[in-house]
């Protein structure tokens, strides 16, 4: 069965060629239309995401959320957009005008660029480059640049501090992300996103659960959401890099953040949850789009769940967590995956899957054991230094031997 997108593309090719245009020009026009279509679709979806986000956070905080405008408050985001558009556009004194205005565009555009490589269905995909996984990293790097530009050009110390934190966070979390993205590459034997989806007759979250978890954590850090939102910690640096932006320029950052969350959800679904794969997706390509968005919105919900559950992480903990846990762990997972892949070459799929799963479980168990030992040592050190509770001196003197045995766990 042919999907409507391919049908329209074939029909347009026929029409344009009938006008006597060169085949190269026809391909160019079709690609251009494809870009416009995908970008518009994703941006319209972005308006809807505002509603989803506000409704979900309301439920997590035992509220109702927007409920006045339209059924279930569905028209509320449109009103929000109009409000943002008619707000006064303020450029702070001493701002670097060109860089200041370029930054929000860059922040949103880099998120849109990621959609170019996500396959929506077996026949509906933007572009299939053979270095898709690396392309994701490269585009993320340009996104970091947009945030640094915003922080620097605003001529505001809080914005600059936010930019510093962003660099520290994004550049650090890029390291385990790059390493862990090699795991699906090893499993699929290709860096192309489309090939990775094609190879997932068993979802990679089964073969590589640790890689999936690490990719999820690092991508939350890359989009700068709670618990990694210290780049815009409102209690410390007001709003971070976008403090000076008003109106639609702020709106672009906001839309970029929401869309980035959905984009990494879609990437996670593509890399670890089988992408468009599902029952009858190969016969009816449109079903693949539905499956991809169901998976992506489920992951989006998990991201929101994490965001509204965990408190903000402190900056030294954030860096320690990355460099002392995630980076060594992702290296270990990569080495184990590579060795197991070589050992089990030619094995049937179920043996391969179970072997990979067992390898991941062993690495995960060792990590948890080491972490538990470290935490126990840390607790003993803290308890040994200061007394956790104030005890009257006569009680402490009377039960000196029992108190030492109770304070040490």
């Amino acid at each position, binding site marked *: 069965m042919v999907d409507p997108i391919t049908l329209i593309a074939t029909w347009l090719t026929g029409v344009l060629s009938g006008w006597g245009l060169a085949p*190269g020009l026809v391909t160019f026009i079709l690609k251009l239309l494809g870009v416009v279509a995908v970008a518009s679709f994703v941006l319209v979806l972005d308006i809807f995401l505002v509603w989803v986000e506000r409704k979900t956070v309301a439920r997590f905080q035992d509220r109702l959320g927007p409920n006045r405008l339209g059924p279930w408050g569905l028209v509320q985001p449109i009103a929000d957009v109009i409000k943002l558009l008619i707000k006064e556009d303020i450029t702070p004194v001493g701002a*670097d005008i060109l*860089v200041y205005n370029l930054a929000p565009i860059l922040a949103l555009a880099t998120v849109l660029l990621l959609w170019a490589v996500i396959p929506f269905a077996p026949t509906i995909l933007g572009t299939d*480059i*053979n*270095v898709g996984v*690396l*392309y994701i*990293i*490269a585009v*993320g*790097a*340009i996104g*970091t*640049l947009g945030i*640094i*530009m915003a922080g*620097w050009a605003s001529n505001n110390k809080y914005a*600059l501090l936010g*930019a*510093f934190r962003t*660099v520290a966070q994004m*550049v650090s979390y*890029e390291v385990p992300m790059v390493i862990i993205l090699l795991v699906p590459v090893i499993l699929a034997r290709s*860096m192309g996103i489309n090939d990775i989806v094609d190879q997932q007759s068993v979802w990679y979250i089964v073969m590589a659960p640790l890689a999936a978890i690490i990719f999820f954590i690092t991508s939350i850090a890359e989009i700068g959401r709670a618990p990694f939102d210290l780049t815009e910690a409102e209690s410390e640096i007001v709003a971070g890099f976008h403090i000076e932006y008003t109106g639609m320029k702020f709106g672009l950052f906001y839309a970029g953040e929401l869309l980035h969350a959905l984009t990494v959800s879609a990437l996670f679904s593509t890399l670890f949850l089988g992408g468009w794969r599902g029952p009858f997706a190969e016969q009816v390509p449109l079903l693949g789009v539905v499956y991809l968005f169901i998976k992506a919105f489920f992951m989006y919900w998990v991201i929101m769940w994490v965001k509204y559950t965990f408190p903000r992480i402190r900056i030294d903990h954030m860096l320690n967590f990355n460099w002392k846990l995630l980076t060594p762990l992702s290296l270990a997972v990569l080495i184990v995956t590579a060795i197991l892949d070589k050992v089990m070459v030619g094995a049937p799929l179920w043996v391969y899957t179970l072997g990979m799963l067992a390898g991941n479980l062993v690495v995960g168990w060792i990590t948890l054991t080491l972490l538990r030992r470290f935490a126990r040592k840390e607790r003993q050190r803290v308890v040994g230094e200061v007394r956790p509770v104030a005890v009257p001196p006569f009680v402490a003197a009377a039960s000196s031997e029992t108190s030492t045995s109770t304070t040490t766990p």
Partner: protein
Amino acid sequence: MTALQIIFILVAAMTLGAGLMVVTTRNLVHAALWLVLSLFGIAVFYVLLNAGFLAVAQVVIYIGAIAILMIFAIMLTRREAVDGTPKSQVNANWLWGLFISLVLFGGLIWIFSQWPGTSVVMPDLPAGLDPLRLLGQSLVSPNAYVLPFELASVLLLAALVGAIVVAWDRK
């Protein structure tokens, strides 16, 4: 003139113009941002040469790591990262610099005019060829580049260890 040539000329003009701005602009952060544009132009050249991996690696390493590190280092210095001196931006040796660069440029032009490859139209990659796989295999194949590759790896590892030793806080 083919579409490829038009794109090449536009991107080359952008790259060279951005490169010129890097050395002439007085604001250091602006210079770094122009450098980003220039490096991005180089990545586009790799794409035009069907070297997708090199293009993406160029963006990851040069824009994602080196340019951001430079901007970060500049931001850690004074707020006014501007060269405010009214002096002209050339020093006393500009004539020598111009002479040497002209000689080098002329030499390169002369060498390329001798080379027959400049007049050959770039052939399309044969179907089914995976340049990325070939690159990966030749990097670890003993018949190809395994020795330089491993040497470079050891060098980078030594640099990493050295950075840790320098930054180590001995108590």
